């Protein structure tokens, strides 16, 4: 399990390869790449700054990852979140999950993203032509995280 918070870019291919290259039990790697967009809520975005809570961030990500490992039969996973200055098309977050079967990998990857969006202490401040503004949390993200309160989905 790898958890990282960093300003530098990450290497998607290297991270995914690290999850399956040396483990022939892995049949599926589901991954998610979050990318900076050039607009949000109708505003043109020139760039953004990601602030976080050092210490709690790593702790929250590790807790979410451990919850995923407990819910599904996973073989390994990686979560990397960038902080600092980002511009449109820059990758922000990578979640990659390795399992024997795809249903578990997909479900765990989506679960981690849904919880990360509501539980991990990151805050985005966007720069627009009119100045900078803090991004508001979305009700849709709370709803997405609430889906997992019952029981895991996913097929064998």
């Amino acid at each position: 399990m790898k958890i990282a918070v960093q300003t530098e870019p990450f290497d998607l291919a290297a991270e995914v390869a690290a999850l399956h290259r040396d483990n022939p039990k892995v049949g599926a790697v589901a991954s998610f790449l979050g990318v900076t967009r050039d607009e949000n809520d109708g505003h043109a975005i020139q760039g953004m700054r990601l602030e976080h809570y050092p210490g709690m961030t790593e702790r929250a990500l590790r807790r979410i990852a451990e919850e995923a490992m407990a819910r599904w039969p996973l073989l390994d996973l990686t979560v990397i979140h960038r902080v600092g200055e980002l511009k449109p098309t820059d990758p922000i977050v990578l979640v990659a999950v390795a399992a024997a079967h795809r249903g578990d990998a997909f479900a765990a990857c989506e679960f981690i993203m849904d919880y990360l969006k509501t539980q991990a202490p990151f805050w985005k401040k966007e720069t627009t032509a009119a100045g900078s503004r803090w991004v508001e949390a979305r009700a849709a993200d709370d709803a997405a995280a609430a889906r997992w309160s019952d029981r895991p989905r996913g097929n064998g």
Partner: protein
Amino acid sequence: MRLRVLYFARLREALGTAEEALDLPDGIDTAGALVEWLRRRGGAWAVELGEGRAWRLAVNQDLAGPDNPLRDGDEVALFPPVTGG
């Protein structure tokens, strides 16, 4: 009781402070009571931590509710709902 209190993002900017060391009077022994006590400072404190505003709270780097007890030496953080990912 002595606490370290951290503020992040919009709250940090609006309150004009990132971190402070607080000496709490007796009786302020839950997270909710601490927020109520901070609110009584008035001005931006009353506005930002007031009824209509969304904020979240962590005690010792775990998300916590208002009933969470506070102990000497705790690290408390106040911040807006998170927006990473």
